[in-house]
């Protein structure tokens, strides 16, 4: 007969206030299997753990129950404690008398009875617990980073500098992401390219980083430590090994089209390098706009290329990589201004979004840093910035705060004033959210030194004025004075809501990780596991998780890299053995468990023709156990017999 020790925790007053601990100890002490029972204020504390350890030795216990909080909090603590004195980890059980008892009841008597029943039912389970040992799986010590923006680059560098290999996949032809589109960064006004290029260059040349730009993740198989990733390399129609990045091809290309990098504020050629500091500095041909691809004629780039690097026959290739951990950094986009009817559904040329304004401010942008409005190139003398467009607005867009707009709008207004001294900038805002080192001071500087007029209220409508000066009438309200405001503006900049990049959802499906209502990737725990996804071995960072600014993104990327390194630094990983198993004598090989398994952890043994469990993939969800028609699927230490006995005990 098992000799079980029961340790009842007061959790301060969390449990003791509602549950009569003395009565619990008295009652449980009478149980034939209980060889030892004791209570203590905080079982999870060091003295509490010491009590458990010495009791195991002194009373020769072969099973331990701690009646306390939920196992998600302290199961590991107590498992480790009992294994330190030689008892098998899986001879520990947690009876939850806090979340499921004391916290949800008021009546002392009922709560006490319930606590006793919970403990008794856990005794029934523990009686049949088997001693198990952890499962070891090998780890491929290589990381995949998806997305080459600032967070992807930071994580790649952190991992590569720790001595592990990294594959960095970026869907555009160069790395740098959104940050490479920015002019200057708040609150210090460093030039974004100047602080970014050292990173892009380091990534480009790092011996441990395999950089795959113009590439996309096609499919992911496997599991933690053992992912197999298919990566599709799109054809650039240029042999990058030969190409020197001289740019003659772009100069000679006759086709001019709107540039995605310039957010339609400028143009690019059909063969192009998106921006001067691009890494790698190699061009791609946009086959949708290239004259040769459309008509079979032209070939000007080929004729002018001094080293014959143009290759119109280049094909898409797929490469496969074995990977241990995956880090997702797919970034953000702005909600299209076309979605806001009040501001003209995007039909007014001089109503632009925040990233477009960044391009106008950028020294390498289409206007060489001169603020000229798109319609006629005139320098705007009255400029209106509107914050929270589509953010904090469930009617038109997103209910959440996009977090970065208060700061970048202040920056925009300030940089505008630096460039146009006699101009007037107005900012419509709901609240100013400037939490961050030096942020509030930055906003105050904009308000006080630059005489930017901050108006607390929303803009109800923007429309074109009658007349030839191209003025835009902005109707808003100043809720502090209660006055309606009408401004005849030359240009309007909308701080559009930050939303996930459009491919994020599709990628999340491939990776089998979850996204929230808006498409941002879910973290495993919002506070305590902010850089992990719920799928083991997949991490997240940057704006793929939620809108955030550069310092926070970089910090999170380093955090994700550190978490990933905890896996890469071992050659083998231990996995909890509390998962499904198959009773080979009973299994008929019907295959129902294969269909219900959401984790691909089931397959049929080729020769035996019965079901098998992939122990690395199984999470112990129990679907196969309830689906198995012949009771051949078992959950280790959660057998049918154990569960039935637990139920019997409480009924």
């Amino acid at each position: 007969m098992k000799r079980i020790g029961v340790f009842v925790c007061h959790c301060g007053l969390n449990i003791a206030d509602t549950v009569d601990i003395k009565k619990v100890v008295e009652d449980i002490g009478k149980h034939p299997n209980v060889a030892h029972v004791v209570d203590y204020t905080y079982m999870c504390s060091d003295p509490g753990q010491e009590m458990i350890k010495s009791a195991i030795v002194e009373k020769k216990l072969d099973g331990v129950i701690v009646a306390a909080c939920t196992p998600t909090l302290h199961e590991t603590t107590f498992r480790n404690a009992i294994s330190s004195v030689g008892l098998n980890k899986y001879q520990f059980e947690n009876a939850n008398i806090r979340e499921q008892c004391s916290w949800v009841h008021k009546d002392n008597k009922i709560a006490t009875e319930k606590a006793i029943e919970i403990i008794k039912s856990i005794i029934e389970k523990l009686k049949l617990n088997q001693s198990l040992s952890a499962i070891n799986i090998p780890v491929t010590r290589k990381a995949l980073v998806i997305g080459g923006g600032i967070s992807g680059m930071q994580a790649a560098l952190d991992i590569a500098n720790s001595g592990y290999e990294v594959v960095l996949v970026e869907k555009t032809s160069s790395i740098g992401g959104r940050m490479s589109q920015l002019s200057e960064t708040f609150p210090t006004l460093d030039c974004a390219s100047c602080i970014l290029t050292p990173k892009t260059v380091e990534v480009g040349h790092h011996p441990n980083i395999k950089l795959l730009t113009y590439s996309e993740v096609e499919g992911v198989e496997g599991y933690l430590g053992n992912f197999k990733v298919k990566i599709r390399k799109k054809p650039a129609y240029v042999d990058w090994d030969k190409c020197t990045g001289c740019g003659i091809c772009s100069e000679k290309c006759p086709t001019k089209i709107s540039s995605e990098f310039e957010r339609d504020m400028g143009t690019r050629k059909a063969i192009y390098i998106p921006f001067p500091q691009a890494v790698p500095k190699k061009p791609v041909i946009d086959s949708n706009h290239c004259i040769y691809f459309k008509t079979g004629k032209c070939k000007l780039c080929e004729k002018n290329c001094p080293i014959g690097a143009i290759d119109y026959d280049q094909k898409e290739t797929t490469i496969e990589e074995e990977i241990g951990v995956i880090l997702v950094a797919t970034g953000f986009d702005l909600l299209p201004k076309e979605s806001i009817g009040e501001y003209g559904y995007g039909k007014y040329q001089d109503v632009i979004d925040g990233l477009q304004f960044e391009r106008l401010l950028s020294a390498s942008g289409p206007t060489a840093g001169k603020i000229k409005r798109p319609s006629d190139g005139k320098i705007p003398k009255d400029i209106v910035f509107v914050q929270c467009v589509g953010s904090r607005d469930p009617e038109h867009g997103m209910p959440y705060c996009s977090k970065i707009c208060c700061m970048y709008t202040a920056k925009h207004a300030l940089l505008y004033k630096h460039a146009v001294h006699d101009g007037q900038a107005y900012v419509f805002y709901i609240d100013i959210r400037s939490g961050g080192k030096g942020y509030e001071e930055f906003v105050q500087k904009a308000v006080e030194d630059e005489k930017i007029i901050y108006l607390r209220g929303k803009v109800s409508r923007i429309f074109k004025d009658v007349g030839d000066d191209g003025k835009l009438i902005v109707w808003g309200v100043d809720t502090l004075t209660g006055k309606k405001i009408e401004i005849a503006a030359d240009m309007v900049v909308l701080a559009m809501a930050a939303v996930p990049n459009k491919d994020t959802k599709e990628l999340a499906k491939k990776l089998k990780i979850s996204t929230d209502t808006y498409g941002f990737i879910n973290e495993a725990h919002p506070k305590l596991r902010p850089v992990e996804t719920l799928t083991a071995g997949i991490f997240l960072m940057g704006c793929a998780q939620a809108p955030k600014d550069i310092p926070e993104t970089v910090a999170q990327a380093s955090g994700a890299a550190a978490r990933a390194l905890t896996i890469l630094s071992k050659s083998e990983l231990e996995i909890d053995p509390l998962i499904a198993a198959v009773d080979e004598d009973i299994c008929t090989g019907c295959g129902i468990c294969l269909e219900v398994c959401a984790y691909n952890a089931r397959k049929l043994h080729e020769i035996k023709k019965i079901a098998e469990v992939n122990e690395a993939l199984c999470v112990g969800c129990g679907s196969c156990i309830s689906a198995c028609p012949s009771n051949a699927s078992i959950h280790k230490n959660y057998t049918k017999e154990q569960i039935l006995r637990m139920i019997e005990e409480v009924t």
Partner: protein
Amino acid sequence: MELCYYPGCTLKTTAKNFEMPAIASMKKLGHKIIELPRWNCCGTVHSLATDDLMHQLAPVRNFIRVLETGTDKVVTLCAMCYNTLKQTNRIILEDAEKRDRINNFLDEEKDYNGNVTVLHLLEFLRDEIGFSKIKEKVNRPLKGLKLSPYYGCLLLRPEGIGLDDIEAPRIMEDFIEALGGEVIESPFKIECCGSYHTVNDIDPVIERTKMIIDDSNTRGADAIVVGCPLCFFNLDYRQKDVKNRYNEFNFKPIFYFTQLLAIALILDEDLCEFGEHFVDPRPLLNKRKLLGGQNKE
């Protein structure tokens, strides 16, 4: 094709000039308008202003009348009737509890489950006849007539009830173009006309009417087109009060869209009762050679 039509109170009193050209035009376009028998009040502003279910009974009764005629579609003209009927229908469709309470209360009537479709005549013209078809049937295009559409609120709001995009509606613009008129776009087309303030505090109404009409003058419109009797009253009749306050104010004719349809189809202009307008639009129509020669059927 026969068409079940719900008129509502205003169309039988002060807005006959909205209804009569509509009925005649629809006949000309091959649709016989059958007025809903035993119709009652649409619920009007009461059914919108309070959440007391009692105010939803009138609209529901109308739906039961519609089903009794053997159809499940009803066409309205008045923007208020359109809005109240459609909103009540949405409550019945989406809120089972309220539906049951209403049905239990109306125990002398058959249960109503929300299966009547409420259409505004503009929607019927656009979706069931088609503006391109109407363009073919127009025998006197409104050539040279510069028209600025004005929607007000009830045709558009709230989301899911209105007949077009809330912020950038096109239906009247497309309709005007189908009749051969020239559209003058105005950002004021979705502004409030002052609504029922006109009953006890005409101040905001005077200011709004002035703002809307002044803007149409700057943009070069000959006239404004509406689809709501209350907008019509505020924009047309209140011009008198605007003129009293602002001597430099210039009058502007206001049309119901149905009057323009009748003109374009060369129907009897007496149906339009232009004489009842505060600003008589006939001088304008004469100037554009759009009067006379009607086909008195």
